[in-house]
């Protein structure tokens, strides 16, 4: 016989003055291979049309469905109910603006973050639409792609106690993105320019090495190694700056 799942969902609609934050319990019969994407849609269709949650790709590539599942920030569409006990608790991601129930606004956060990083290729080259695309070593392209796989789901921010305590903290997703641009030979920014963006308490030196980001990232981006790499690089640069300045004066 299949299990009856007890799904407790955080309910609150900030738009509705009568709404109070609470947990609401739903029951659902488990079907083979059930994931939370299907489960939530069934609940909405069969039991409660007022339930709010986000989905788009249902294939772990858009990052819209991130939520806290039994304490861990995860993608709902990638989460099978069979890996969980009968009771499943769903909460919205902390650290982002709540839209309602399980929906949060990660978009604004990521927009501000990307603007702070100037997360685009900085170059002096005039763009020539006729020219053939520049070539790049395959291994390098793969290295960049490995970091570029981030889907901006926000799980690493929701998992990071530093980001939760200090709202200006850029977080692993941003630092990973800078590591990606450092790798990219088309981005002509100097080390010093990168340092100006992340060599602060809001950047790499604010990270306390708790590694929840590394352990939680649903795309398994190698975050720990990027953080270590950046800190070393930025630390060495600061020491170099010191020696240089000494020499000059």
């Amino acid at each position, binding site marked *: 016989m299949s299990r009856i799942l007890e799904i407790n969902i955080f309910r609150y609609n900030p738009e509705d003055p009568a709404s109070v934050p609470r947990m609401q319990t739903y029951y659902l019969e488990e079907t083979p291979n059930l994931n939370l994407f299907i489960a939530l849609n069934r609940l909405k269709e069969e039991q409660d049309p007022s339930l709010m949650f986000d989905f788009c790709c249902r294939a772990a590539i858009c990052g819209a469905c991130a939520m*806290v599942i039994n*304490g*861990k*920030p995860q993608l709902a569409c990638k989460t099978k109910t069979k890996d969980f006990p009968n009771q499943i608790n769903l*909460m919205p991601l*902390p650290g982002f603006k709540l839209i309602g129930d399980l929906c949060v606004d990660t978009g604004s956060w990521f927009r501000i973050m990307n603007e702070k990083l*100037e997360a*685009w290729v*900085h*170059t*002096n080259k005039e763009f020539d639409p006729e020219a053939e695309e520049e070539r790049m070593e395959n291994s390098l392209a793969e290295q960049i792609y490995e970091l570029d796989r981030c889907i901006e789901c926000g799980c690493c921010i929701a*998992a990071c*106690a530093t980001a*939760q*305590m*200090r709202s200006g903290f850029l977080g692993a997703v941003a630092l990973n993105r800078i590591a990606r641009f450092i790798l990219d030979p088309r981005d*002509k*920014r100097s080390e010093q*320019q990168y*340092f*100006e*963006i992340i*060599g*602060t*308490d809001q950047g790499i*030196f604010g*990270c*306390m*090495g*708790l*590694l*929840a980001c*590394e*352990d*939680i990232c649903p795309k398994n981006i*190698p975050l*720990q*190694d990027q*953080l*270590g*790499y950046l*800190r*070393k690089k*930025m*630390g060495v*640069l*600061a*020491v170099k*700056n*010191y020696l240089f300045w000494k020499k000059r004066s």
Partner: protein
Amino acid sequence: MRATNVRKINFSNTVAYLDLSQAITGIFLCLFMLTHTLLVFSIIFGEKCFNKVALFFESTGLAWSSGIFLTIIFLFHFLLTARKIPFSFTEQAKFWSQAKMINHQDTWLWLVQVLTGIVILLFGSIHIWVILNDLPITALKSKHLMQKGGWVYFYVLFLFSVAFHLGLGLYRIGVKWGFITSQNRLKSKKYLFILVGTLIMIDSISLLFFYF
């Protein structure tokens, strides 16, 4: 956008130096602690041996000079790390609810590190005060101290705090500065826990020798 157009943000190296100093003072204090453990361990070869070691540090003036030097580094390390400790209640509450929510080992261990750090700040100051005010160090005096009142409990708690703080601190430095990578993370953690265990064992043996 052109690379030359990138706007200059008010920038300084200070934060980097502070962070670097935090790690360096930490490593320095670790090395000191390991030496200290071995020196105190000389008690197992008898009081004479311990006294000889103590006398060496006394006669060369190392006892008080390094004592003062280390106190300064110790306080400096506290000031640097305090930049990361949540002092405001909102931050504390956020950290606590976060730790409870994700129930993640390394996040809990950070809390252990903060708490042991505070114990060390308090107990370490008392310890340094008591010892430096009663130089020279001799086995007999230490024994007296140990057998008096609650001092054993004081030192047992102190010892555990130091050992864990040291092991966790090294782990954190390794992770933050990229010496511990995702490849060797679990192994490094295991070795550091072995180090913590060994430290506790050695220091406990010394304590027992003083106690009886």
